[in-house]
């Protein structure tokens, strides 16, 4: 069997070519592969298409994010649920590059994004969803009625690489997530040709995780890398609250 454990973060991302499509898991701090994103920034691949819930930078302290890769000129296109901040008063690092036309973006409702990733992993090329019907996002899209209700056609979103983060793994690649760390991780693993997971706890021997308690089976996972302890490794931080007026 192929060995999945990589010696370090750099080795885990070393072969990613220019032009790759990469999905970053995470929702807020939990489950975000900060270390793999930082390693990718070091690695230097460019002309990337990146997929994530957000482009980052909405919360403090700032952690490695898509915005950082955009700032370094590595990104051709982003597919995400936020190209701007939720609050009109906030500005994301990404937004100014987007508004200046230096990076493309495809804005996708979060549930549609999750389902398109799952569809890619499930061999479903396209499906219909009620989300975004009657909105600007429906313009020019294929519409269809089922049982009198209008739906939009959405296509699977396969990716070359998925960057994941999990609390625990065994050497077979079976993953366990802690609490809301799970978020996009399982569906991005499914959507990926090669799924790379950064792991918080020491990697366990095969069989150490009860088969009933596995969240993402190892057959979806191709590479594992142990996160170094801080300060070398990056770990979730407590969000700094902004003072509200």
């Amino acid at each position, binding site marked *: 069997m192929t060995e999945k454990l990589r010696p370090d973060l750099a080795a885990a991302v070393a072969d990613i070519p220019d032009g790759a499509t990469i999905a970053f898991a995470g929702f807020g701090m*939990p489950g975000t592969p900060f270390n793999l994103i930082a390693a990718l920034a070091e690695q230097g691949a460019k002309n990337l298409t990146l997929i994530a*819930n957000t482009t980052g930078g909405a919360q403090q302290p700032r952690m490695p994010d898509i915005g950082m890769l955009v700032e370094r000129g590595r990104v051709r296109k982003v597919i995400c649920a936020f190209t701007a901040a*939720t609050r009109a008063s906030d500005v994301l690092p990404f937004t100014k590059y987007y*508004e200046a036309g230096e990076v493309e973006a495809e804005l996708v409702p*979060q*549930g549609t994004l999750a389902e398109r990733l799952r569809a890619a992993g499930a061999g479903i090329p396209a499906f219909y969803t*009620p989300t975004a019907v009657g*909105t600007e996002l429906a313009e020019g899209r294929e519409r269809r009625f089922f049982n009198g209700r209008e739906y939009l056609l959405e296509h699977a979103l396969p990716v070359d690489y998925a960057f994941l983060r999990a609390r625990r793994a065994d050497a077979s690649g079976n993953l366990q997530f802690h609490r809301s760390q*799970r978020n996009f991780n399982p569906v991005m693993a499914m959507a990926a040709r090669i799924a790379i997971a950064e792991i918080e706890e020491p990697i366990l021997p095969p069989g150490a995780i009860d088969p009933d308690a596995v969240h993402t089976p190892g057959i979806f996972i191709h590479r594992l890398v142990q996160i170094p302890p801080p300060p070398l490794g990056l770990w979730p931080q*407590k969000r700094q609250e902004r003072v509200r007026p």
Partner: protein
Amino acid sequence: MSGSTPDAPLGFTRQQMADRIAARFEDGWIVNLGVGMPTLCSNVDIAPRRVIYHSENGVIGYGPIAPAGEEDLDLVNAGGQNVTLLAGAAMVHHADSFAIIRGGRIDVTVMGAYEVSAGGDFANWKIGRAKGGGIGGAMDLAACAKRVFLVMEHATRSGAPRLVGRCALPVTARKVVSLVATNLGVFAPVGEGFRIHELAPGVTREAAAAATGAKLLD
């Protein structure tokens, strides 16, 4: 969204607006609270009724914000706040979380908004001048929850109405809003205008009408 607008000098406070929304929650409902003002709903004691809070990142059954020093940094609600879990909570992944939403299991989604129309359309993902926007889970929730309640300021900082005849901003969903709590009162979009459920203390019908961009009905 309207979150950064200071409370109006008269009318409901932000928490009072959320109180009005929470008062409508029925026992056993599955409730999704948007970022900002809607999260204030979870501060409200509605006992003996109990609801289940769902967050789109796959948290089912969360409770109050974690006390300082006791946060689990791997547990956040949709707003990124470190919440706690109540007994009976369960975690799912993002596709399953939106299966819950799209499958129609959410009894009510409470959101902020820039604009809401008398026909029940609302806008909360893109401001006029922006190239992009922040949709998040709002379009899925708005299209698929059994009910959409909004909690929002009644007017912009410059005094323009946010309750209007027709949305000028790109909409999040159409014909879905059934209740709107603002600093001036509680209203229901009913097609030909907004029906007044309640006016905030000190707010006259005339003042509310003057601040509203559509007909007010009693």
